[in-house]
């Protein structure tokens, strides 16, 4: 069963901004890590409040190089790397317990 956490987006530490993503796939095509789900699926999960899905993708979120290859070409100017940092902050705090 998929649980929706309506508070999830608001609980993130920073202005998570992916609403403009049109799922065009440019980011995926240019990603040196070939991260297929980042940002398209993952960001959608965050917007929908699928917190569990985000937690399951811990390795994907931490394997992003923050290199901005994707961002440099994103037609919707989604702040991809800033969003990844925000998701990392969430995992560091709530999953890895390093927030103190």
């Amino acid at each position, binding site marked *: 069963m998929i649980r929706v956490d309506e508070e999830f987006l608001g609980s993130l*530490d920073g202005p998570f901004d992916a609403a403009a993503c049109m799922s065009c796939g440019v980011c995926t095509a240019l990603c*040196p*890590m070939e991260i297929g789900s980042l940002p398209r699926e993952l960001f959608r999960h965050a917007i929908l409040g699928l917190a569990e899905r985000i937690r399951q993708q*811990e*390795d994907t979120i*931490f*394997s*992003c*190089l*923050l*290199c*901005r*290859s994707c*961002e*440099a070409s994103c037609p919707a100017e989604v702040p991809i790397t800033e969003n990844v*940092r*925000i*998701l*990392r*902050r*969430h*995992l*560091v*705090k709530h999953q*890895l*317990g*390093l*927030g*103190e």
Partner: protein
Amino acid sequence: MPLQKKAVLGILSDNLRRRGSVLPLSRRLHTRWARGLGIPLGGETVIYTGQMYQLIPAISKMARRMASLEDSWLTRVMGAGRVVNKVLNISWFLSRARRRERAVYDSMLRDIALLLRASGVEFGYLYGDDMYTGALVHDQGVDSALAAHARRVVAALQAHGVKRLITVDPHTTHMLRSVYPQLIEGFEIEVRSYLEILDERGLVPREMHDGPVVVHDSCVYARYESVVDSPRRLLTSIGAAVVEPELSGVWTHCCGGPIESLFPRRAHEIAARRVEQLAESLSTAHVEAAGRGEQGERSQRGTVAVMCPICLVNLTGAAEASAGRYRDISRLLADSVIGDRARWLARRERGQKALPAAQADVEADPGVLPSAP
């Protein structure tokens, strides 16, 4: 089994909190590069290393050890390692680097300092107060450790009355220029990379560089801080034939460094892919140089110019036999502008002594760093 994120990030952030750096270096180790250069303590304009070049030998040693742990049973006891590290700095044992490697990275900082002097920029150095800025924990999202550390860094800058910072690597430049102003209210210190300053001042080469230079841009310089043209103009000004790899400038390809601490094997694969692209450009440059009938060994073989110590250690690690063709850009510029470092320093010292008192005062004025465009 992959490395335990909680343990690795925990050790790095505990170190930053307790010891002031992700991998603490003694004051002697992180200031040794400046020995004998007579750089004054403090001043309004200072060179700020953020300890990045000095940390590279330790980081690379630690990464090699971590890579050997990946998939080993030891990853399961890494959590215990973090507990011990809180009391005893085990990361120090894991990251003890060879003296020779440390000397190489120190020499790059010396070259940067000499190049700034050769361009007429006078600056101080904070010695023990030149602290790591926290780039790694910022990237990993451990912001609780970062905020307190950034306040310590800024307090030290304010205590020294610093108004302008000359940074030497992309990560420190980005942290101080773009991240700190968001973290610390009222942070208004001007931050510029030495490449931007040298570009504005201009270099006077003593000996022109012979041969093609393939440029590897750092993602952070190119896509976060828009430092793209300065390194190219500087290389051209010393006579280098600049060669652009297939992915360059704002389209540069990452060196893999940012994931080295958590996914060393993947980081190595990314570096190897970049090395392949650069090797292709080197071989094209080689064919072109041969076609023009250029004879010298350097003209034929070409060099890769790198402007970030993290890129340098990752790319050379993946380049294997051709690692010797990768050079920090400061080395290429200093070979041309400074030449024999010891003789240049001795000449300069003699020149300073011979200057009339009034002129010497002008040259020693620390306020000559040009303002931002």
